[in-house]
């Protein structure tokens, strides 16, 4: 009983804090100065159509490196906690087995499309990585005896992580700053091979996120 009163009090307190924020909130009419700089710089400086991508990859690139590291640590923790065991499962239906074998390759190709076009369309490394992981998930769901090759997965993961850092360091060597995307010629606005190193960096992020999430799913789902 006391617990319920306490919960109700807490919810009411939070509500009375939020209410004035909600009522008195005035929406901006214009972009803030920083955002204006980002939008302008993305067109004039980086040749990237998608401003969100240029914020994530270039202007806040160090943050993204941190995020990827956090993801890696979480994966390591999950793999450390959960050990694999064998169990009996029901075989998937024949229709699912047949259709998933071709569909999974199409999904992987779509993931590659998403992370290589991160500077032109919505999406990027994180979403493309999730697509690749979900293709492997579909294979896991349709085939009960599937064994993923962990050596190749860890190889891809560590290699793409290392290349990500190396691309950043090249900018440092050329003395234009860590993770600067101008180490490669900028190209023509709106083409696939444009925006400097942004597609390259996002592809590495995509491969790394994809292999890490596949590891998480394998550790949690595998038997």
């Amino acid at each position, binding site marked *: 009983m006391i617990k319920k009163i306490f919960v109700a009090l807490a919810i009411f307190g939070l509500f009375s804090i939020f209410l004035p924020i909600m009522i008195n909130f005035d929406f901006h009419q214009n972009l803030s100065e920083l955002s204006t700089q980002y939008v302008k710089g993305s067109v004039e400086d980086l040749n990237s159509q998608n401003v969100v991508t240029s914020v994530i990859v270039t202007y806040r690139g160090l943050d993204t490196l941190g995020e990827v590291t956090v993801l890696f640590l979480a994966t390591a923790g999950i793999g450390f906690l959960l050990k694999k065991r064998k169990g009996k499962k029901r075989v998937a239906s024949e229709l699912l087995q047949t259709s998933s074998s071709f569909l999974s390759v199409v999904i992987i190709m779509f993931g590659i499309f998403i992370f290589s076009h991160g500077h032109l369309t*919505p999406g990027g490394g994180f979403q493309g990585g999730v697509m690749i992981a979900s293709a492997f*998930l579909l294979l896991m769901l349709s085939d009960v005896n599937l064994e993923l090759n962990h050596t190749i997965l860890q190889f891809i993961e560590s290699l793409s992580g290392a290349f990500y850092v190396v691309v950043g360091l090249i900018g440092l060597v050329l003395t234009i700053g860590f993770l600067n995307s101008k180490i490669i010629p900028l190209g023509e606005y709106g083409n696939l091979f444009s925006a400097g190193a942004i597609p390259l960096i996002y592809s590495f992020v995509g491969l790394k996120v994809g292999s890490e999430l596949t590891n998480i*799913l394998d550790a*949690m789902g595998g038997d």
Partner: protein
Amino acid sequence: MISTIIIILGIIMIVAGIIAVHLKNLLAAIIVSGAISLLASIIYLILGSPDVAMTEASIGAGLTTIVFLFALNKARKEDKND
């Protein structure tokens, strides 16, 4: 027009949230919370951030649901073994 869509979807999401918190069946609660994420991605799209909409549709609706299912499955298997 757009605000009509956002109001109706918002009401659905709030009702779904209350129900997901109160459902006794864990699997049903997971499915309803997956529906919240799917509708949230339409809201993000209306608010003009397709990147976030794509991330929410792929992670919030797809992978989070599946991770919950795997956890439930492990608990179910523990039950049966001993």
